[in-house]
């Protein structure tokens, strides 16, 4: 589904991604872990099409197409979804209104009939149960005055409604108390399917107790430096990131 090859990206003059290689197939859950500043979030945003990052080398093939050529809305319509670490507050636009506009743009692109208000209401009501949200929240202006947990649940609600093929979750677990984490994680886990790939960007292992990944990758300094199964996550939890750093530094002279 997703083939990332030698991806380099920078912000201004700072190179943040320095050669990412990653293959994700349908039905798989990949966790991307790493210390702060390793480039995890940048990877997520570059895949979603944020224009403030400049791709300087490499390619991303998504469903056989050149993902990097598509504007963000086209990526969304082709099935790429990013759950934001910091969802934006938009006073004056309700979640319902905005999400209906989004889902219909996607459906139109896929040649499906657009939802009318009644169909959409039924859909969103069903999906709200998944993240234990109530009606009053989705009628409120988008994310305005939402707690951290409510914002993250709203992201997962959007994921459920938009039904992406590739869902990228950028630190969806950060800042959540254990109850909110459980709700969010259960919501995501329920959305696992053989047709969908999920990329979990996270700093901590605890999310992976709920959503058990098929693969774990460790990012450091703009590269994926180690990949493995779920055991790798536990090892990181246990030992921290320092041993990875040490390994990388040890390897460096030979690279040079």
């Amino acid at each position, binding site marked *: 589904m997703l083939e990332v090859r030698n991806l380099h990206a920078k912000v201004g003059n700072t190179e943040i991604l320095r050669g990412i290689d990653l293959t994700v197939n349908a039905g798989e859950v990949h966790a991307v872990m790493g210390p702060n500043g390793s480039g995890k979030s940048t990877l997520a945003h570059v895949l*979603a*099409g*944020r*224009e*403030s990052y400049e791709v300087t080398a490499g390619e991303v093939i998504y469903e056989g197409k050149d993902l990097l050529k598509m*504007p*963000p*809305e086209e*990526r*969304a*319509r082709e099935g790429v*979804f*990013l759950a*934001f670490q910091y*969802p*934006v507050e*938009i*006073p*004056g*636009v309700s979640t319902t209104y*905005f*999400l209906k*506009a*989004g*889902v219909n*743009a*996607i459906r139109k*692109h896929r040649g499906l009939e657009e939802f009318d208000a009644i169909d959409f209401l039924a859909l969103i009501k069903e999906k709200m149960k998944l993240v234990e949200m109530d009606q009053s929240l989705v009628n409120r*202006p988008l994310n305005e005055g939402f707690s951290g947990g409510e914002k993250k649940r709203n992201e997962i609600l*959007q994921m459920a409604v*938009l039904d992406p093929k590739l869902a990228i979750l950028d630190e969806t677990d950060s800042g959540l108390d254990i109850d909110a984490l459980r709700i969010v994680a259960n919501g995501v886990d329920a959305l696992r399917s053989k047709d969908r790939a999920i990329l979990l960007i996270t700093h901590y292992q605890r999310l992976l107790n709920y959503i058990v990944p098929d693969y774990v990758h460790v990012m450091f300094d703009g590269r994926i430096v180690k990949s493995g199964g779920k055991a790798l996550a536990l090892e990181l939890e246990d030992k921290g990131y320092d041993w990875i750093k040490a390994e990388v530094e040890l390897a460096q002279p030979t690279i040079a």
Partner: protein
Amino acid sequence: MMVTASKELDTYLSDFELFEKNGATKGPSWIHQIRKAAISRFSELGFPTTRLEEWKYTNVAPIAKTRFKRAECEANGLTAEALARATLEESACVQLVFVNGHFSRKLSSLRSLPEGVKAGSLAAAWGSDPASIEPHLARHASYHDHAFVALNSAFMKDGAFVYVPKGKVVERPIHLLFVSTAPFDSAQDRPVGLAHESLGTAVVSHPRNLIVADDGSQAMIVESYVGVGTNVYLTNVVTEIIGGKNAVIDYYKVQRESEEAFHIATVQAHLDRSSNFSSHSIDLGGALVRNDLNATLDGEGIECTLDGLYMVTGRQHVDNHTRIDHVKPHCSSRELYKGLLDGKSRGVFNGKIYVHKAAQKTDAKQTNKNLLLSEGATINTKPQLEIYADDVKCTHGSTIGQLDQDAVFYLRSRGLDLATARNLLTYAFASEMVGRIKVEPVRAQIENLLVTRLQHGSRAEDAR
């Protein structure tokens, strides 16, 4: 002092002589006195220049240079159908229509006016009911320091008079619709085609409105300004609003003049103890627009809310000057003006809050927020506090920004295209003000205009 009137002023002075000789000036002598004093003051003031602090960013030279013809015509051939886009649903309100400043009974609908409430032509009222007019007219909007108020006071001929008696609650909004039309060519049975070269055919009207809400009364007043055709004209309006003790006045001014029009307006509200005045000023039209909105809180416990929304594009210029005078203690004022500026438009906001020495416990808050949608748009914003009391709570602030790129990306990442994302955010910015409009047909009208404007904007962007 020797007054050296320029050629521009001479035109007005000689026109005033004509105006006086003309039968149109029939009326009580006190009106005549006001007019004479006002023209004399105007001849001293002249048109303001940008050297004056209050007019620093608004150059009225295009108005001063244009030779306007006083609009004499009545509702020539103007039909209710032609006004449909500007009228409010008839069943929902009392509607008074003014064509080039003159009251048109034919186009108005006064059927649902409650007993005791007066609404109609000011000129008719100052003849038949001077006791209701004389104590108020020109007592509040001062022509001594504002040239356009002086001009209006000199040439005032008609406008709206609304009186709500003591304790009366008027449930339905009273809509005052001001329509400017091109001079009518009766031979052709259509408006005369106007072009810039035909100076002297541009018309001016000086509508004069007086709204009196007696003690304990309640009313919603909506003033709308529209133009029929695309001609150059000037609307120079003055509205005086008097709120008695405990009166509740919800006042709307919706300015949708045609795109070549000049619109100069002064609204002066004088409020008594425990009254509640809220104003909603909406500017969408006009080439050059200046609003002066002044509220004098002359009693304790008054609540005053000033809301404003201006949405301009192309080369439009809109200037909102507001002044709130806290004269007595324990009053609160809340002011929020929002501006959306696109194209090469220019906005000016100047909000003055003046807290007099006696006005202890004043609670005043003023905010001006602007969204610049293009590189070429400009806003000059200046909040001003002058405080002479020592126990008050006053805050003010202004913001100028562009669309939040994080928010644009967020929306696009959910499948919305760039134009839709921008429109949605622009709409969101303005919708706060629309949501504060309590008169449902006005709210719906503004909402529609806003959505239409945004769709046009996105089409223009697609074309580029």
